């Protein structure tokens, strides 16, 4: 088998989910969802967000500790190995080092069944999906499809082979109880890599130290499984950020929305006439992050995040022509403003162009929140942007991807796709020859970029998603825009020819 460096391949497959009949999408560092409206681009993006929420830091981990008969078989040798491992992890956490360690096979053999016993976690995943969509999951089953929506997440991490072992989770939404299953290949080495979450490690150590009863062994191994799972699922466990399509409106109206929520919350439960308003989880999380920016600690974060700060400044300089800033009230509630270059006073966002409101949250996220390794989902970044700015913004995102942030876009823009195509094509030019080409430091290799076309089909009724490879002749990822160009051109040619046609 071919050797390769440590890498990860994450595939998300769904059937009968929302408007999507079937989709199998490999998530790359720069992933683009393109297609007509109502074909499910945002559905898939929100689902991805929910999966991150579940597998990532905010995930409820109950269920990973499912009882396992094998846990009782923890031998003295295994117990010692687990204890040593956890102490090493704790020491690494203390020194703030990241850690890269393989579990001994006799311990891994005990942990794998625990990693597979995930059915008790199905309601937690179901809750997270429902929260992110702001709807009961049953309503997400495709109407003209079957009686369930099926979601599969496959993660392959390997240092050793191209066809490395693949861990997979299968989540099924039904009218009754949701189901979650996991498959961990029996020959899959279990590895922990990264910085150690101290609470989980401490918890596991305390359990081991207190007694060697079977129950505690089981919980210790469960905690170990909790540590392993984020590495096994790779990017899906990392922090994710969602900039929804209506972010510009939220930037203008967040104070009104928050006031309304607080006002109604105080009356919640006193009658059906004043139900608590609901927001989808992606919108609520976005709102929460904005309000969090009222905390002064984010200034310190921005100070540390030199790379993110540089991207934010580039966006401000090259596209916005001014700076985005945050004012904080006495109680730490933020308001956002824009100061055009060379002006001496700020403008509230509501008095700026729609482009500024659209991109202000991107500036704030890059400056204060998003870090290398994170995933950033941006819906329709082309909204309110002139084509030249769309191209510049796409190039900025390429730089962000090159810094280690994974980006997922939904788009309707041929300009975004063409700009991306140029950057992929640029990767074929030898680096020593790129100097004379604009954006020479932004090239993305083909395996870093994936463009996925969402198309409405009659059979099966719903949308089907397929990858669109870069078409070198057309100079883009062909997403149906060229057909529209040709139709418009032919219409023009037809009109012009009639105009020029000699009279009777």
């Amino acid at each position, binding site marked *: 088998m071919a050797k390769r460096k440590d890498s990860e391949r994450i595939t998300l497959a769904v059937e009968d989910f929302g408007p999507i009949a079937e989709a199998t999408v490999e998530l790359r560092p720069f992933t683009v969802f393109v297609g007509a409206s109502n074909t499910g681009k945002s559905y898939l993006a929100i689902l991805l967000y929910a999966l991150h929420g579940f597998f990532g830091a905010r995930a409820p981990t109950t269920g990973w500790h499912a009882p396992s008969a094998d846990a009782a078989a923890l031998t003295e040798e295994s117990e010692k190995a687990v204890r040593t491992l956890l102490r090493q992890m704790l020491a690494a956490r203390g020194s703030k080092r990241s850690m890269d360690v393989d579990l001994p096979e006799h311990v891994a053999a005990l942990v794998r069944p625990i990693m597979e016993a995930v059915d008790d976690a199905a309601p937690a995943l179901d809750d997270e999906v429902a929260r992110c969509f702001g709807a009961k999951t049953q309503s997400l089953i495709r109407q003209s499809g079957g009686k369930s929506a099926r979601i599969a997440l496959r993660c392959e991490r390997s240092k050793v082979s191209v066809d490395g072992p693949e861990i997979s989770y299968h989540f099924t939404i039904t009218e009754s109880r949701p189901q979650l299953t996991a498959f961990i290949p029996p020959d899959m080495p279990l590895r922990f890599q990264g910085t150690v979450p101290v609470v989980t490690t401490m918890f596991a150590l305390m359990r081991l130290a207190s007694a060697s009863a079977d129950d505690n062994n089981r919980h210790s191994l469960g905690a170990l499984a909790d540590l392993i799972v984020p590495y096994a699922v790779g990017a899906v466990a990392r922090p994710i950020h969602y900039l929804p399509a209506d972010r510009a409106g939220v930037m203008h109206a967040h104070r009104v929305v928050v006031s309304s929520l607080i006002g109604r919350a105080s009356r919640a439960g006193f009658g059906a006439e004043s139900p608590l308003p609901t927001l989808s989880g992606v919108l609520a999380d976005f709102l929460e992050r904005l309000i969090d920016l009222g905390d002064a600690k984010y200034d310190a974060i921005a100070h540390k995040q030199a790379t993110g700060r540089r991207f934010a400044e580039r966006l401000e300089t090259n596209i916005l022509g001014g700076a985005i800033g945050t004012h904080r009230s006495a109680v730490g509630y933020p308001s956002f403003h824009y100061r055009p270059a060379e002006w001496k006073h700020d403008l509230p966002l509501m008095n700026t162009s729609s482009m500024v409101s659209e991109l202000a949250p991107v500036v704030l996220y890059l400056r204060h929140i998003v870090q290398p390794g994170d995933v950033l989902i941006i819906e329709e970044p082309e909204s309110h942007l002139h084509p030249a700015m769309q191209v510049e913004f796409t190039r900025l995102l390429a730089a962000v991807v090159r810094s280690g942030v994974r980006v997922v876009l939904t788009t309707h823009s*041929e300009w975004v796709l*063409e700009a991306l195509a140029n950057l992929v094509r640029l990767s074929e030019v030898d680096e020593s020859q790129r100097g004379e080409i604009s954006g020479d430091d932004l090239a993305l290799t083909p395996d870093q970029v994936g463009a996925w076309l969402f198309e409405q089909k009659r059979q099966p009724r719903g949308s089907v998603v397929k990858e669109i490879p870069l*078409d070198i*002749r*057309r*100079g*883009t990822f*062909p997403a149906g*825009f*060229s057909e529209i*160009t*040709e139709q418009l*051109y*032919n219409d*023009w*040619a*037809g009109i*012009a*020819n009639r105009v*020029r*046609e*000699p009279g*009777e």
Partner: protein
Amino acid sequence: MTSPLDQVAVHPACLVDECEERSCVVDLADVPSPFKLIKMDLKHAPASATNVRCDFLFIGTSSDRTKCDLYVAPLELKSSGFSPGSVSEQLAAGAKVADRTVPRARCRFTPIVAHDGAHRRQINDLAKHPVRFRGSDYAIKVVRCGDPIADML
């Protein structure tokens, strides 16, 4: 009384029923008929004044004489992309052949290029390269290989 199409004097050996070149085919379904389709590189095809020529010349009879008598379309088929300037030259050569070959009836003239993938800029650049026929300039229309041309005429 002979129809305008009958007055198109070309050797029968250069007439074909299918429009295919360089693995690019265009669909002739529902084109105005009867028609004559001249394959320009066959031995008895009307000669071009230069070495440049297009692939086919389509001449079809109009069923609605209030619009025109004949539909005339030089066709160039490309299995990949194309250069708008070169295509225009090839279609212009076809237009000159049509000028000599087609009677002085009322013609609806449409130069067409078929392709199998072109950059948006190439499509839009075609607008800068009209084809001249009997004193008027005509914009080149585009069709994908495999697609019908009836709606283009």
